[in-house]
Structures are given as structure tokens and as C-alpha cells.
């Protein structure tokens, strides 16, 4: 460029390459975007991932089958029940067993409540990133109600190792159903509150309508699943197409929109929260009859009888008396299964579930030993992020933030 250009005021046309992330308030975790900008317009966008790679898949190969639950649950950390259920269903398919009916209903109950909790975090962070900061506080307020239920039932607010191979590890506490009933009574009003706040809000509409449009053909070619695909027009939901855990017996709808933009994804997720509430109501009805929550086969079941005490989960006093004083056989089983683990027959299984972000698949390979041979987590956000350049190119930088928050990636699942 010559010195003359400086004085004649000629415009220089070159693109600016800037880095967004990995430490950034709006990238939903440690996502790094390399944006090539022409002024405010994004020319190309390259997502770079791997900043949260934890080696979960390699670690599961060195731990027993039951311990694998605790590793897998921390992959997509906003939907721990889904990770656990997919893994346990895959292991159960390899073993050729089925969890008892009540355990299946509990799994569905907690998965749907997890879906609501995850969508609340999405709403909170999406609102905050676009400037509606009070939505953050509302979303987390409701989420605390759900966390209370999780804590009462499983002992932990997050990353509960609740779903185990053969069922679930504990039944609901006394008064648990009433607690959930109170939550069900309160939640629809709150969802209406969010809609009143956002759905016709001119700023929300300006920032979301027509932004980040993904046509259904592109979505399918990128392998996108979940609310993004449903907002683009295709009603694909693993719960309806390949039901598991008894989903074919529940009545619920799959919300679909045609527009394929950020606003459509917002509407789909709000409707999904309502449908999840419907499913939770049906679960609560089914849980009124008692039943077993873990299979009875002593060689496979998780031996402990846990209950939530003052300092967390532990074996119940009655169970400790049973194994220490009453039954030697029970003690031996407990010891063997907890230390050595169970042996799962050799084979391969791919099991998809519908997580809040899309199709979460678990490809589990066993070689007959007491440790998994290979656990591959097909994470929905990993695949959905491939569609981000398509949605962002040609838009403004500010729209990038709106698009990322509507894709709702959880980097723990993306990077594993």
C-alpha cells in the first residue's frame, strides 16, 4: 500500500481475523470461534473445539462397568441423566436384561425433569447473552426448584450417578411425589411468565427472527438433530422414532416449527418444556403403585441399598445390619460386585436417546470382561456445531452470539 493512499483517503478492503473465546462470556463454555470479519459482517467462521477434552472415553476403558456411569455422566454435564440412561440401556442390552417397570418410569421422570432444567439454563444464558439479564435470574430460580427435587431423590444436584445398570439406585423419598406435584403446579405459570417477557418483546424479536436460518436440507446434511432440526421443520425425535424406557406408552407431542431461525428454536424449546411437564405428570400417576427399582438378580444388581442421609448418600442402616450380621452371602456378593464388577457379554451396541440437545448415542463395545472395551459418546452438540458456520456466515457479529446460544452447545459433551 503506497503512502498516497494514506493521504487520498482511499478505503482499504481487507478482512479482519479475530478470535472469540475460549474464555468468553457468550460462548457457552470453552468454544473458540475464529471469525473473519468484513466490518461487522462475518465472512467465515471456524469453530475450534477441544478446550475441554477430558479423555472420558479412554478412562472408561480402565474402570468397571458400574464405575463407567460416573464418567459418562460428566460428559454432557447439563443432561447427566441422559448420559447415564443411554449408557445403562446400552449395557443392559448387552446383558440381555431389562430394568423393572418402576425403574423405567423413574428414569423417564428424571430425564424429563432434566430436560426442563437444561432448557431453563439455555433460556437463562440465551437471555443474558442477548441482554435480557433478568431472564438469567428467573431461569436459575426455577432450576433451583428442580435441583431441590434432584437433591432429595439422589443426594446430588448435578452429576448424580443415579441410573445404574439394572435400574436406578434408590427409590423416591417419602413425600417425593408431593414435592414433584408442587413443582408441576407452579411451573406452567412460570413458563407463561417467560413468554410474556420475551415472546412479543420487540428487542427479542429483532434479535432472533430471521437470524441464523438453517434450512432443513442443510440441517440433515450436517447431521443436526434435536430442537434445531425440529425448528427447521422435520419432526424427528428419538423418543417417538426409536422408543426406549417405555416412551411409546406416554402421551406427548413433538413441537415443530418451519422457520428454522433462532426464534423458532426458542419456541420449540419452550413448547418442549410444556410437553415434558405433561410426561412428568403421567410418570407421577404411574409411580403411585409401589415396585422394585433394581433388578433382583444378585449377580448383576448394584448390591447396596442407599438412602440420602444428613451428609449425602450412604448405605442404609438396615442394609449394613443385613450384610454384616445376617447374611454372609450378601456380604460376599456386595464385596465382589463393588470391587470386581459385573461381566458383560461380548458385543457391540449403539443406543440413541433424545437429550435436550439432540440425539445422544452411546456406542458400547464389550469383550466379555468386567471393564468396557470401548465407549463412544455420540454427542449431539458435537455434530450440531458443524452447522454453526452455515448459520453464521454472512450475518453480523452480534448475530453470532444469538446463533450460538440458540444452538445451545455444552462443551463437556462436545469435547468429552
Amino acid at each position: 500500500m503506497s503512502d498516497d493512499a494514506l493521504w487520498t483517503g482511499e478505503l482499504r478492503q481487507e478482512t479482519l481475523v479475530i478470535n472469540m473465546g475460549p474464555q468468553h462470556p457468550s460462548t457457552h463454555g470453552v468454544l473458540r470461534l475464529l471469525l473473519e470479519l468484513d466490518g461487522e459482517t462475518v465472512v467465515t467462521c471456524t469453530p475450534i473445539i477441544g478446550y475441554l477434552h477430558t479423555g472420558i472415553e479412554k478412562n472408561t476403558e480402565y474402570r468397571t462397568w458400574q464405575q463407567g456411569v460416573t464418567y459418562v455422566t460428566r460428559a454432557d454435564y447439563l443432561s447427566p441423566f441422559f448420559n447415564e440412561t443411554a449408557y445403562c440401556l446400552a449395557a443392559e442390552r448387552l446383558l440381555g436384561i431389562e430394568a423393572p417397570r418402576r425403574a423405567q418410569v423413574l428414569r423417564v421422570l428424571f430425564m424429563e425433569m432434566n430436560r426442563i432444567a437444561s432448557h431453563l439454563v439455555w433460556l437463562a444464558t440465551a437471555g443474558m447473552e442477548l441482554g435480557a439479564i433478568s431472564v438469567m435470574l428467573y431461569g436459575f430460580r426455577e432450576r433451583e426448584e428442580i435441583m431441590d427435587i434432584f437433591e432429595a431423590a439422589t443426594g446430588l444436584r448435578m452429576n448424580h450417578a443415579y441410573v445404574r445398570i439394572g435400574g436406578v439406585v434408590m427409590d423416591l423419598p417419602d413425600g417425593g411425589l408431593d414435592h414433584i406435584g408442587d413443582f408441576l403446579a407452579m411451573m406452567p405459570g412460570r413458563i407463561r411468565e417467560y413468554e410474556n417477557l420475551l415472546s412479543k418483546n420487540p428487542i427479542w424479536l429483532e434479535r432472533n427472527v430471521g437470524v441464523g436460518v438453517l434450512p432443513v436440507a442443510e440441517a440433515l446434511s450436517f447431521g443436526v438433530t434435536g430442537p434445531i432440526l425440529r425448528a427447521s421443520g422435520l419432526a424427528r425425535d428419538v423418543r417417538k422414532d426409536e422408543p426406549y424406557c417405555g416412551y411409546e406408552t406416554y402421551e406427548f407431542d413433538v413441537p415443530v416449527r418451519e422457520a428454522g431461525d433462532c426464534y423458532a428454536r426458542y419456541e420449540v424449546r419452550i413448547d418442549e418444556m410444556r410437553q415434558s411437564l405433561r410426561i412428568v405428570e403421567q410418570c407421577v400417576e404411574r409411580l403411585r403403585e409401589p415396585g422394585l427399582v433394581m433388578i433382583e438378580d444378585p449377580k448383576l444388581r448394584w448390591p447396596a441399598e442407599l438412602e440420602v442421609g444428613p451428609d449425602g448418600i450412604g448405605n442404609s442402616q438396615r442394609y449394613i445390619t443385613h450384610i454384616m450380621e445376617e447374611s454372609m452371602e450378601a456380604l460376599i456378593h456386595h464385596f465382589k460386585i463393588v470391587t470386581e464388577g459385573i461381566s458383560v457379554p461380548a458385543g457391540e451396541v449403539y443406543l440413541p436417546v433424545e437429550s435436550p440437545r439432540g440425539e445422544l448415542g452411546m456406542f458400547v463395545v464389550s469383550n466379555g470382561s468386567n471393564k468396557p472395551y470401548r465407549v463412544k459418546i455420540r454427542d449431539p452438540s458435537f455434530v450440531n456445531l458443524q452447522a454453526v458456520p452455515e448459520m453464521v456466515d454472512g450475518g453480523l457479529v452480534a448475530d453470532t452470539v444469538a446463533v450460538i446460544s440458540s444452538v445451545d452447545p455444552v462443551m463437556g459433551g462436545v469435547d468429552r
Partner: protein
Amino acid sequence: MPVERIEGFKTGKDDADAEEELERGLLLTTLDRSVSWARKQSMWPVTFGLACCAIEMMSTGAGNYDLARWGMELFRASPRQSDLMIVAGRVSQKMAPVLRTVYDQMPEPKWVISMGVCASAGGMFTNYAVVQGVDTIVPVDIYVPGCPPKPEMLMYGILRLHEKVRTEGRFR
């Protein structure tokens, strides 16, 4: 679990350093005390949420377990405007240089809380991908264990840090 100790490897402060600090501190007590009080009253964290602990950190900042009562609800995005880094989550090998860069960009005085067992010691992920303890990269003031720690545990850690800052009495 057996842990081998390696001869001659030492970190942290020893007695000589502590005495020197005490001497310096005695000269400026009242001013020191007010400065320390001011520092702890509104410490602004930088957003460094990485994984599951980040969600618990956000819950701590939200309405139910309000961090605003201690003036800390404002999580600054830029490290240049913050004084506290709460490393919330597992630090992968790829993220470690970024962590160090963000730490270096924070102006003095700065403190680090290592939240969760993954940040404190690698957690359950003793493998090739996770840095086994963020104190191998940055100096840590408070370790908050838990997987993830409940918001109340994080608040306790923050309050202990406030105590530490208030009673430190050194001009830094």
C-alpha cells in the same frame, strides 16, 4: 494410594518469607487494614467457568444463593477488570496456556480459587488430557473440593478468601 515423595522438591512459602512479610506489615497496619477491607468488599471474578462447576458457580451468582450480598455478582468478561479467578471445572491440556494467559492479564492484586476437585487435583480424570491440579500452572489461594461443590461450599470458600484477604495485611 501410595504417593512417592521426591527429594528436594518444594513449593510454597517457608519461615523466612513469612517473617519478612510480618515485618513489612507492621509498618502500615491501619492503612493496610482499610485497603484489605476494601479489596474484599467487592472482588470481581473473571468468567472462567469451564465445565460442570461453572453451572454451580452460575447458580451461586443467581438469585437463590446470591453472590451480590458480597458485591461479587458482576462477573467481568475481561481479566483486566477483575481481581478473582474462580477456576471452575476441569482444565484440559489445550486450555492450560489460555488459563495462564488470562491469569497473567489480571492486574495485581489477584487471587485464585480452585473450585472443584478437577481444578484442585485433576479430580476423577487422572489421564493424559486433564491437568492434574491447576496449581501446577497458577498459584492458588483457596481450594474448594466437591464434584461439583454445592453453592454453599463455594460461598464458604469465598468467605474464607475474604478472611484471608482481610487479615493478610501486606501491601502488594
